[in-house]
Structure formats: structure tokens, C-alpha cells
């Protein structure tokens, strides 16, 4: 899909760029939203990432454009912008609303293709009961070294090969970080589900690395 788009971008950037925007805006917005938590910040980051991509493409010759891998390349731009934003800000406490599941982004429709297809049995009920906001809150409280790989692998759906390019880390390291991130998410989920009271409020992990 992207190879056709790359050929068109190389031939006429201005004519093809809108297709790049339409093809990648959902995933860039999703990455930023799941890394930062705030919908307005996420929209700004996604727009800024696309604008930077356009300006970079405008300086690349056709060969360089044809060699690009758009998915990891765009993800890198968005992640770097999230990190810059994290550095600028004072840490935000995870709000009670997020812990309670009243995520302001909750009304946003999930992507049809990415929506959970629940498996039958008791797990179906369990999954249905847990809102996206609950999981989004858990992801936000992951340390960044796990949060970024988790979001790229399991929310955005990048391959380990693409992630290695996007993050400049070996695949083995990334697999270990994703594995550890998934375990942390599962145990945090269990802790939240079993608690009679709200878990102690911990600061959301800022993007700093």
C-alpha cells in the first residue's frame, strides 16, 4: 500500500501528500494519544508530525523517498515530538477520572478494523467490562521504556523489524521490553480489578528518555 504512495510522493509531493495524511493520521493520533493521554496534545503532535514529514519530503530527492518506510519513519517523528513535549511540561498527576474510566477520549469511536473481537466464554465478559479508558490509563502509567514499545507493537501494530528502525534498538531488546510491559499491564490490571478501593494515585510517567 505504502509503496504505491511512496512512488506518487516521489513523483509529485503536493499531489500525493493528502493521501499520506489520510492513510496515517489515525495511527499517528493514536500513538500520540496513548503516549501522552491528552487529546489536544495528541492532535497537535499528530499535525506537527505530518507537517514535519511534508517539509522533510520536500527536501528529499525521489530515490530517498522511494527508500523510506513510512510507518516506522512517521512513528519516529511523532514519538520524538511526544518526548519533547514531555520534557517541557511539569508532571501531571493521573486524574481520578482516568482511574475511574471516565477518559475524555472515551467517546472517540474505535477503529473498526482494530476493534476488539471478543472471544467467547468468561473472558469475553471480562474484556467487555474493562473499558478502553481503563487500559489507556494503565498504559499511561507504564514507564516510558515499556510504554513506547507496547504502543508501537500492540496499539499501532508495527512489526519488530519496523520498531527496531523506528526506535533504533535491537529487536531482542524490544521483544523483552514488550514482554515485560505486557506482564506489568496484566498485573496492574489484576491489582485494579481486585482492589476494593481505588489504587493509590501515582504520577503518570512523563516522556523523558
Amino acid at each position, binding site marked *: 500500500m505504502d509503496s504505491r504512495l511512496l512512488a506518487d510522493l516521489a513523483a509529485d509531493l*503536493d499531489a500525493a*501528500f*493528502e493521501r499520506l495524511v489520510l492513510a496515517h493520521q489515525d495511527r499517528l493520533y493514536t500513538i500520540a494519544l496513548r503516549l501522552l493521554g491528552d487529546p489536544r496534545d495528541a492532535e497537535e503532535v*499528530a499535525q506537527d508530525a*505530518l*507537517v514535519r514529514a511534508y517539509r522533510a519530503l520536500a527536501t528529499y530527492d525521489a530515490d530517498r523517498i522511494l527508500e523510506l518506510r513510512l510507518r516506522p519513519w512517521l512513528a519516529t517523528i511523532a514519538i520524538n515530538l511526544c518526548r519533547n513535549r514531555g520534557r517541557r511540561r511539569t508532571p501531571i498527576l493521573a486524574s481520578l477520572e482516568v482511574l475511574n474510566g471516565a477518559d475524555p477520549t472515551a467517546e472517540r469511536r474505535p*477503529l473498526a478494523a482494530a476493534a476488539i473481537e471478543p472471544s467467547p466464554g468468561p473472558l469475553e465478559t*471480562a474484556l467487555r467490562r474493562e473499558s478502553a479508558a481503563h487500559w489507556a490509563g494503565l498504559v499511561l502509567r507504564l514507564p516510558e521504556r515499556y510504554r513506547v514499545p507496547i504502543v508501537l507493537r*500492540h496499539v499501532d501494530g508495527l512489526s519488530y523489524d519496523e520498531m527496531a528502525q523506528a526506535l533504533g534498538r535491537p529487536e531482542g531488546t524490544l521483544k523483552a521490553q514488550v514482554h515485560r510491559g505486557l506482564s506489568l499491564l496484566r498485573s496492574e490490571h489484576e491489582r485494579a*480489578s481486585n482492589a476494593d478501593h481505588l489504587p493509590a494515585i501515582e504520577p503518570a510517567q512523563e516522556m523523558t528518555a
Partner: protein
Amino acid sequence: MTARSTPLAIADVEAALAGLAVEAPPTLAPATLVAVGLADAYAPLDSPLGPVFVAWNGRGISAVDAAGDRSEFEARHRRSVGRPVRAVAEVEPQLARAIARRLAGDRRVAIDLDLRGRSEFERAVWSKTLEIPRGEVRPYGWIAAEIGRPRAVRAVGTALAHNPVPLVVPCHRVVRSDGMIGQYSLGGPGNKRTILAAEGLDPAELEELARAGIRYIGSDTTRIYCLPSCHNARRITDRHRVPFRSAAASEAAGFRACMECRPGSAYAAA
């Protein structure tokens, strides 16, 4: 979340994470295309001539237009720049402030203009026009001489008639070479007189001088001569004002040209 839930498998965590993908807000794509200059946004803005439409993108202002209604403006703008154009609620406050300051005569405020697709000659004409101070006018021939094309007086007139950003590029401050006010692209000559008057110039007085054949005003104290609307000329008190019909006559009388309005450029081709 009080009841003990069934322990999850890692695969179930993965499935929950896949459900965190969302759609981008509908504003993202249009705003991005405007930011990179592949589409324009526009909104009405109050001006000394009443409401006008202002269009812009991430590269700068692309149009100022006195079109009667939105559909008329959109059709004309699309035809002229070949980009999609989208109505928004208001001109970005920062941009509106910059335009207001420019109209108030502050030439230091930077306003980016998106003049892609326009010729080098047109850009040269418009850049030079930006240098004319508020409340002053210069003849077409002055622009032509100042940009090093003294014979292109008619082409200067054509370029100014095609100025896509009137008011911001003050083409209303360029007048006919005989000193008469002349045509104006933003709604006709009446508007040109209105806005010049709003800038503190008296168009009737200026045309009176022109009809009398007076092109320059000198001061017998400084021995400097100026174009009549130059702020230096307007400071001269009546008893020290010396009218001239030509630059040659001024020079012959021992006057030298003002360094600011550079009156020698006005009729260089003549």
C-alpha cells in the same frame, strides 16, 4: 471493579491494547493541509473598507478580497490559486493583529505572504509597494524605477491590479503618474480614496495639485524637494513651500532630492 475477575492471559491484554486504536479528530487532516500550504483557510475580517475575506495557510496570507459572499469568494479564490479553500470561524488572532498593525502604519511587523505561482516581476512590484509609508502615495513610475525597470510603468499597473493581498500590500498608495488617484482593485476608485483619507491624506487636495501640474514640493530652508505626500514635504510651512513642475526645475533651482521619498524615481522614464 470490586468482584474478583478471571485472570487474563497475555493474549487478552494484547487484544485490549489493540482496542486502543482510535480515529483522528475530523479537524486534523484539513488543519494539516492548511499548515503545509496545500489548502487555504479563510474568514471575514473587519477593515477600513468594511468586512473583507482573508485567506491564509502555513506559508502566509494568500488573499484579501472584498467579495460579496462566501461562495463568490471561494469560487474566485479556487480559480486564482488552484487550492481547496475552507471557511473557518475567524482569522487567527496573531494574524489579525499583524494585519491591523500593518494597516495602522507599522511597517516593522512581519506578515508572511504566500505568493507561490506569481512572477518575479510581480513580487518585486509588491515588495516595493510594501515600503510606501502609510498616508503617502507614489506614482506607478516610481515603483518601476525603484525596481530597476523604469520603462515597465504599464506592467507595474497591471501587477498592482493583480495584487492578491490588497490592504496588506498597500497598492492603494500607488497613484497615476499624472498624480490622479486612479484605479483600485479592491472594489474600485471610491474605496481607494476612502482608505487614503483614512490614512490622513486628502485625495482632493492631492488631485488639485496634480491638475495644477505640480509634481514636487520643495523647502526654501532645507533646499530639499519631495513628492507632495512625503511626510517631509507635509511638514513644510506654507511660507517656505516651493512648488515645482519637474525634477529638472527643482534641480535647476538648486534643490536636491529627498533621500526618503526619492522623487527622482518618480518620472525616471520620462
